[in-house]
C-alpha cells in the first residue's frame, strides 16, 4: 500500500499541448460572427411582437429596413407620454416622414435589389391598428411592397 502512494511523487503530470487552442477559439469566434447579428440601433420604445404559428424566417438581412412601433420606454414616457410611437433608425418619426425615408432608402439600392427590399414591421402586440394601417399606406405610396409582420412563435 505504502509503495503505491509513494509512486505518485515521482510521477509527473504530462503537460497539455495548447498550441491548437487559439485555432479552436477562432473557429468559435467566426461561427458567432456569422450566425449572430448586431443591434446597431438603440431602441427607444418597448415592444413585444405578437404571437403566431405560421412563421417564416427572415433572410437577406442587408435588404431589410426595420420600422418599430410601440410605447416609449419608461424613462422616455415622462417626456413623450404613453402614446404609441414609430421609430426609424435612431429617432422617433411622424407618419408623414415614413414615405420620404423609404423612398430615400430605395434610391440607395441597385435596380435589382429594389424589388427585393423588405420592410420588417416590428410592432407591439397591444398597438391599435390605426397606426399600422397608416404605415402600410405610406409604404404602398413609397412603393415598398414586401413586408414582414414580425412575430414570435407560439409554443
Amino acid at each position, binding site marked *: 500500500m505504502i509503495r503505491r502512494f509513494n509512486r505518485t511523487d515521482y510521477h509527473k503530470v504530462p503537460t497539455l499541448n*495548447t*498550441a491548437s*487552442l*487559439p485555432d479552436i*477559439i*477562432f473557429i*468559435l*469566434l467566426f461561427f*458567432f*460572427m456569422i*450566425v*449572430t*447579428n*448586431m*443591434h446597431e440601433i438603440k431602441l427607444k420604445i418597448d415592444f413585444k411582437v*405578437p*404571437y*403566431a*404559428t*405560421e*412563421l*417564416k*424566417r*427572415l433572410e437577406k438581412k442587408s435588404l431589410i429596413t426595420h420600422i418599430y412601433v410601440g410605447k416609449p420606454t419608461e424613462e422616455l414616457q415622462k417626456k413623450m407620454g404613453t402614446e404609441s410611437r414609430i421609430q426609424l433608425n435612431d429617432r422617433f418619426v411622424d407618419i408623414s416622414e415614413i414615405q420620404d425615408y423609404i423612398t430615400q432608402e430605395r434610391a440607395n439600392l441597385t435596380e435589382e435589389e429594389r424589388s427585393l427590399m423588405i420592410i*420588417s*414591421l416590428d*410592432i*407591439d*402586440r*397591444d*398597438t*391599435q*391598428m*390605426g397606426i*399600422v*394601417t397608416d404605415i*402600410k*399606406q405610406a*409604404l*404602398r*405610396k413609397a*412603393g415598398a*411592397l*414586401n*413586408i*414582414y*409582420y*414580425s*412575430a*414570435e*412563435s407560439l409554443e
Partner: protein
Amino acid sequence: MYKGRRKIPEINSSSTADIAFLLLIFFIITTSMDPEHGLFRRLPPFLNENPQSLDLKMKERNVLNIYINSEDRLMCGEYYIGMNQLRQRAKEFIANPGNKKDLPEKHAKDIPFFGNVMVTDNHVISLQNDRETNYQAYIDVQNELVAAYSELRNELAQEKWQKNYSELEEDQQKAIREYYPMRISEAEPKKYGGN
C-alpha cells in the same frame, strides 16, 4: 557554416488564445442570436383611383369578407364567428370542394404535374379592420389565413407526392402555389362602428 547554426527566434504564441477569447466574448455579448421570424405579405401597389370601384369588379361569390371590429370581434361574411372557426371557413372558401354556388367559381387551368384541373384562382379574401382593432387580433387573423392555405397545400402535396409542401422540389411547390394561390387583400382602411 555560421548561417546554418543561426536559428529563427520563435514567436511566443501562448497569448493568441487569450486574444481570441476576448474577441469571442465581445461578440457573444454585443450580438444577438435570436433569428427573426415573421409573416411575409405583399402589399398591393398604390392606386390613385377609388379602390372601392375595384372591389365592385369582383363577383360577390369570389370574395370572402372578413372584418375585425374595434372590440376584436370577427365577422366573416355576415356572421360573427370565433377565431377557431375561421380556418375551417377559409379552407372551405378557398378550395370550394363541393363546387357550391355561393363559393368561388372554378376555372379549368393547365398546371404542370396536375394537368388540366379546376381551380378557384379568382377568389379573394378581403381583410378589413377598424382603426381601434388590436394588432394581436389582426395578426391572429392573418396567421389563421396563412394556416388555412398551408393546410390545403399540404393536403394536396400529401395526396400527390405523399410529402409535405415544404419538402417538395421548387417546381413542385410552384405548381401547388398555382393550384392554391394565396390571395389575401388588405383592403383600404374604413371606420366601422364598435357596437
